[in-house]
């Protein structure tokens, strides 16, 4: 479902944009405004991160956003309620991103039901390799949701094929080593990696980690299908407020 949506969008656009926000940061009200602005500015899909106390794959900016959201009283229930409101209000696909313990404690099947009821399209769970994720894979399939799997530059070709056999919707390609929000060197090195990713799957490819401006996105055109902007918009909201988001997103394509 998500795959066909993305492929139809790609007929009109050279590259799609996916953005990432941490739910409840700076607040749920402001999250709603950020989403509204992003959708108006032409973002094609969004990942909504349910905060977790131990976000090991995230760098300082998203880590602090997780901690502050929790300190302000965010709960899984509030995130689910918010998601319901968002999917009813905006006409782009939304995904959840969170760490496995959030799904595990909620109950994997129950979580998948909640996602389907709220018209969420899929999930990205960065600490859940398919080897550990049978229950998750079963539940996602049962409710027609897309589990998004991740390639990294350290993933051998054979394992890329293995991961792609479980993935649906698209594959999230991590641009480099390290955590979210650090600089990425957009160079030939990345080309070779993306070629490897492309050979491993027929699914659209998203590239994230360190994508921050128009130059980066221009570089990625023709090499990846989706550019992921995560930390950069969170930084922007922190520095200049929600009002700056629209212009920033508009400047990217």
């Amino acid at each position, binding site marked *: 479902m998500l795959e066909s949506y993305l492929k139809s969008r790609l007929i009109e656009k050279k590259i799609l944009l996916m953005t990432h926000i941490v739910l409840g940061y700076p607040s749920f009200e402001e999250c709603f405004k950020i989403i509204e602005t992003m959708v108006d500015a032409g973002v094609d899909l969004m990942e909504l991160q349910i905060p977790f106390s131990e976000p090991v794959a995230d760098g300082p900016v998203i880590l602090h956003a997780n901690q502050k959201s929790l300190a302000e009283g965010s709960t899984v229930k509030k995130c689910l309620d918010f998601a319901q409101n968002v999917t009813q209000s905006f006409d782009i696909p939304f995904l959840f991103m969170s760490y496995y313990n959030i799904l*595990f404690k*909620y109950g994997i099947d129950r979580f998948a039901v909640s996602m389907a009821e709220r018209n969420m399209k899929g999930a990205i769970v960065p600490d859940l390799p398919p080897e550990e994720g049978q229950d998750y894979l079963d539940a996602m399939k049962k409710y027609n949701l897309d589990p998004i799997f991740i390639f990294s530059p350290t993933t051998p070709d054979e394992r890329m094929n293995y991961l792609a056999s479980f993935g649906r919707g698209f594959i999230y390609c991590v641009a480099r080593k390290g955590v979210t929000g650090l600089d990425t060197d957009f160079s030939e090195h990345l080309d070779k990696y993306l070629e490897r990713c492309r050979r491993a799957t027929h699914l659209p490819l998203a590239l994230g980690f360190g994508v921050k401006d128009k130059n980066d996105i221009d570089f990625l055109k023709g090499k990846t299908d989706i550019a992921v902007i995560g930390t950069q918009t969170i930084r922007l909201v922190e520095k200049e407020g929600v009002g700056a988001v629209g212009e920033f997103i508009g400047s990217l394509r």
Partner: protein
Amino acid sequence: MINRGYYDGFGGAFLPEILVATFDDLEDKFIKAKNDPSFWKEYTDIMSTYSCRPTPVTFAENLTNYFNGARIYIKREDLNHTGAHKANNVMGQGLLVKRMGKTRVIAETGAGQHGVATATMAAKFGFKCTIYMGEVDVQRQRPNVFWMDRLGAEVIPVREGTRILKDAINEAFRDWVSNMDTTHYVLGTACGPHPFPEMVSYFQSIIGKEARKQMLEKEGRLPSRIYACVGGGSNALGIFKGFLDDPVELVGIEAGGRGLDSGLHASRLSSKDASIGVAQGYKTYFLQNSDGQMKETHSVAAGLDYVGVSPILAHLKESGRVRFESATDREVIDAMSLTIKKEGLIPALESAHAFVQAFKEAPELSKEDIILINQSGRGDKDIFTVADAFDDPRWKEFIKKKAEEYNA
């Protein structure tokens, strides 16, 4: 990722994709080393020359007479180089790092013992070294920070989250995902993703191997009960592993903090406050809320102040093979004080948790019974915390004078 490292449903390897290849390589090197008979010999050789292995068992005659029950023996892991069992794991992983050809090591530390041990290993083997330590622990374990600095390690205070052990582990993982080509993460306890629980308890099993032999030599029979404190679980697993197939009751003691009812503790297996979850790459009992967010923990002993626990111990709890108890901060100070006075031994605050439970049970046992306590480390490092607990006026006077000297 072939072997998932499960212990009856606990454990696993919940890894971000970027680390999968690193863990595959680590497991491969570890299995090869384990199957190479010369590796264990190399390991025991270095432990007998660089550290102080085999560490003795000491018969605690005065405590035995005082409690008038079971004969009390103490396994002296405090006599290792750097003063704790941590050296066992660190030197073992150091030998693996050499085999892997890496040039830098990183580690988390709570009490600072694992950090100091890692820093000495790095100095000896010529590795660069970075230690992550929660800001709260940097404050309460200052002497160990001083030694890590002297040993040439870079100590990074972690200001995220609860600013203790779990947060230091998160930061070490964040370093590792950037630098895995040159760097090995020397995880300090039998937790984390596979193969760490297996690997750390493999190196620590030297404690139990020695202790079993020593008890047979001294007494001609095995102890009826063995006591060990449980933070992540590495010293406990180390000694327990020597006795798993014997008719010996194994008792793990967790940090009861200000009491199990206070909520201010770090008891995952002996309280009702923990539930099964997945964090820091493995599945076990965690102190977490109903949403799966980790809670703050509390203990007078920084080394036990941790939200999770070894998946191997979670399994041994479920199977009933190990009994778990807890000791409060107050009980720990009292047990430490008694041990110092009666035996002239200074257990670390962590280790003193094991003494608390042994002292509760010794009088109820017969004089024919033998009990063995694992003194996982020495208490010198705790001088500031213990001085506060004793409210020692002469110590305070000394610190004030010292501060004046620095201000002058």
